[in-house]
């Protein structure tokens, strides 16, 4: 049997750690979640020699072992718990040659945990351009480790890294620094109480909230002989520790690291001057956004139509080829359309993440965050909320997924909660048909209405984040420290792996729920209680014997729908939605819109028994629907009320599913569902009552 080594990959953000991971593991990666939290857990395999494999865990990027976010706690907790099944046999700390000093801070901390540690100096291809020379043998002696120079761009060093991992037993486990020197008296008393524990581990447990299997924070503070320190003193000691570490690092680098600035080429300031300009910076950003969204709309429509068509014909094929019965009907009307409803989002999600990861990889995203932070902070959001809010106009699902890089939980949560207000592409068909029905064609009224609805979405997102920022109170202190990385040409491999990963997450996670609800909707539409449903054919035939076969069948289907469970539900909703100007048929459409908003048009098509589903005929049928008093159902009041309802209501189960995943529970998606729908109801109610 092959031997398996546990390898933990650590490093500061922006050091190219993930590139190293991608090169080591290729497509063997698996992405999951750490139990109970939404931090991504990425692992993959790498073959070291014919009989040895490494199980490589790509830990979240962290600046130090002093955790300040959920992502960072994951790292500390793993390194402290020897019993954890993921506990590394060897740690690999990835650093970037240009920021070596800062990156080495983490290295010295990891080494102090007595774990065999390899130091990777990445982006070695940059050394010449930046005029940097390194004395590797000297650094290896002074840091007491093995150093591997890598460049993922020039594909160098990965084999040496594999070899170094394989020979991990040769690595020293001596700590880099003696932490007790920051306060000898304090550490001495600590050692007296816990004679068998490593002092640096104890120190980490005391200074932060992490679980530590054998000994928890409580026990440390409970120990009677131990004088606890107030928090500000601890922080002062942490600062002292940091200073000590930098002294050590400076001592090493002074001899081993040389920079000849006259050779260095500085692209950063040249790009920054334009991209972060007070006027041009915003204009360029706006232009890039336009370009991205135009491409998402343009490029995804062809594959989306293809997916739509394929599943429609698959459905037909199933109906024709399989014996009639419950199973066939479930397959053709529940499962296949449900699957299609999941897959149809893939082109948009894949494209959006393709562009987002280009922006991220190139280093541009940090500049956008810088430009937008001030404006968005007024609403309780962060500069980092820009991307989700704007991605929301394509689809809220990838937008919610894109909130992951907002470190501050409060700002992230608010962003997640308000993103569904932005007008997603699924609302567009609904708006389109309603506008053409109720808004006069002359002048610019129709276009203005559509633009107004988009604006309304953004405004409501900002207003509700403002309200949330006044009501949500979290203890976590909010601060904003954003590293401005160097500009880099994105690596295609990294970009494609990100796209693949995000798409897979969506299909698997949101897919499960979309599927379940699609099947539920099918059951509710295909079954009904009592004779009205089961004898629909006879009843309709008796009532209208003059109908020909085709007309008869659609009429029967409509009658069945009316008396199915979903029809009954629609009817029982009627008293509640009548003040909004909706009848029970619209009620059904509202319920089934929950599977996806664009279903609205299709559902009305079924209910108004239209043979072809071309928009024109649906429109005509809708236009000729009348109320009991003979006035048209879709008048201006109903139309506006319905549009407002669609603008505000949380009607998308896929979004709820992804919010549930990102916030780890049903609490926030439920709050979202009820408050948004209530707002939608009130808006529709008010507008209908005023206009009618």
């Amino acid at each position, binding site marked *: 049997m092959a031997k398996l080594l546990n390898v933990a990959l650590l490093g500061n953000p922006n050091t190219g750690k993930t590139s190293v991971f991608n090169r080591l593991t290729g497509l063997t990666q698996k992405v999951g979640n750490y139990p109970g939290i939404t931090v991504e857990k990425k692992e993959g395999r790498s073959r070291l020699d014919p009989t040895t494999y490494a199980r490589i865990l790509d830990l979240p990027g962290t*600046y*130090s072992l*002093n955790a*300040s976010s959920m992502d960072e706690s994951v790292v500390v907790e793993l390194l402290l718990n020897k019993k954890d099944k993921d506990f590394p046999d060897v740690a690999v700390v990835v650093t970037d040659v*240009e*920021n070596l*000093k*800062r990156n080495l*801070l983490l290295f010295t901390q990891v080494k102090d945990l007595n774990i065999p540690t390899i130091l990777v100096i990445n982006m070695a291809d940059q050394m010449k351009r930046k005029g940097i020379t390194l004395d590797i043998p000297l650094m290896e002696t002074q840091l007491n480790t093995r150093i591997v120079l890598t460049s993922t761009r020039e594909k160098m060093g990965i084999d040496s890294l594999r070899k170094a991992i394989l020979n991990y037993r040769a690595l020293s486990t001596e700590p880099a620094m003696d932490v007790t020197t920051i306060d000898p008296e304090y550490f001495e008393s600590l050692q007296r109480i816990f004679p068998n524990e490593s002092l640096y581990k104890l120190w980490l447990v005391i200074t932060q909230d992490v679980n530590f299997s054998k000994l928890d924070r409580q026990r440390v503070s409970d120990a009677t002989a131990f004088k606890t320190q107030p928090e*500000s003193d601890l*922080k*002062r000691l*942490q*600062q002292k520790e*940091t*200073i000590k570490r*930098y002294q050590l690092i400076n001592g090493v680098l002074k001899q081993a690291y040389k920079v000849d600035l006259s050779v260095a080429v500085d692209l*950063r*300031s040249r790009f*920054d001057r334009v991209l*972060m300009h*007070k006027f041009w910076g915003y204009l360029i950003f706006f232009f890039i956004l336009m370009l991205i969204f135009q491409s998402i709309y343009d490029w995804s429509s062809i594959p989306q139509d293809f997916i739509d068509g394929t599943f429609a014909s698959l459905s037909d094929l199933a109906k024709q080829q399989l014996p009639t019965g419950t199973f066939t009907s479930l397959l053709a009307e529940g499962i296949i359309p449900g699957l299609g409803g999941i897959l149809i989002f893939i082109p948009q999600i894949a494209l959006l993440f393709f562009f987002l990861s280009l922006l991220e990889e190139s280093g541009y995203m*940090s500049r956008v*965050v*810088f*430009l937008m*932070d*001030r404006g968005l*902070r007024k609403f309780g959001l962060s*500069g980092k909320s820009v991307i989700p809010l704007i991605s929301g106009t394509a689809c809220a699902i990838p937008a919610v997924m894109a909130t992951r890089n907002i470190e501050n939980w409060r700002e992230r949560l608010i962003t997640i909660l308000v993103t569904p207000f932005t007008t997603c592409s699924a609302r567009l068909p609904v708006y389109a048909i309603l506008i053409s029905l109720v808004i006069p064609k002359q002048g610019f009224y129709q276009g203005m209405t559509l633009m107004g609805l988009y604006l309304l979405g953004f405004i409501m997102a900002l207003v509700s984040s403002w309200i949330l920022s006044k009501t949500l109170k979290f203890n976590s*202190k909010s*601060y*904003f*420290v*954003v*590293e*401005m*990385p*160097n500009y880099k040409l994105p690596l295609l491999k990294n970009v494609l792996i990100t796209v693949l990963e995000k798409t897979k997450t969506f299909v698997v996670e949101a897919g499960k729920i979309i599927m379940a609800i699609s099947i539920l909707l099918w059951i509710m539409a295909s079954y009904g209680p009592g004779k009205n449903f089961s004898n629909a054919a006879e009843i309709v035939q008796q009532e209208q014997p003059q109908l020909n076969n085709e007309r008869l069948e659609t009429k029967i289907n409509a009658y069945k729908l009316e008396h199915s469970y979903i029809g009954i539900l629609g009817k029982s909703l009627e008293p509640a939605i009548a003040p909004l100007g909706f009848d029970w048929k619209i009620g059904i459409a509202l319920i089934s819109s929950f599977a996806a908003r664009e279903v609205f048009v299709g559902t009305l098509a079924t209910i108004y028994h239209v043979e072809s589903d071309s928009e024109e005929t649906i429109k005509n049928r809708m236009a000729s629907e009348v109320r009991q008093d003979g006035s048209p159902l879709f008048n201006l009041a109903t139309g506006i009320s319905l549009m407002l309802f669609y603008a505000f209501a949380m009607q998308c189960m896929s979004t709820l599913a992804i919010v549930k995943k990102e916030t780890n529970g049903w609490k926030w998606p439920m709050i979202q569902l009820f408050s948004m729908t209530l707002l939608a109801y009130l808006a529709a109610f008010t507008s209908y009552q005023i206009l009618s």
Partner: protein
Amino acid sequence: MIRLDQLDFGVLAEIDHIDTDELPLKLIEMGCLPGNDIRLIQKAPFDDPLYLQIDTSHLAIRKETAQHIFVRLKS
């Protein structure tokens, strides 16, 4: 000695002292320590946030954070 948010563009300064209780440890770990060189590269509109070079790190912080960092001009 002046507060960091009053520093001019491009002027090289040295961190004199910081208000440890008010600054996130992360910032300190990124090099915001007494004795290190600091330079203001850019300000966003309304002078917030600030884009800084501290030692060899490039980072952005909000003005409210910068008010707890005190610097000395280097001639």
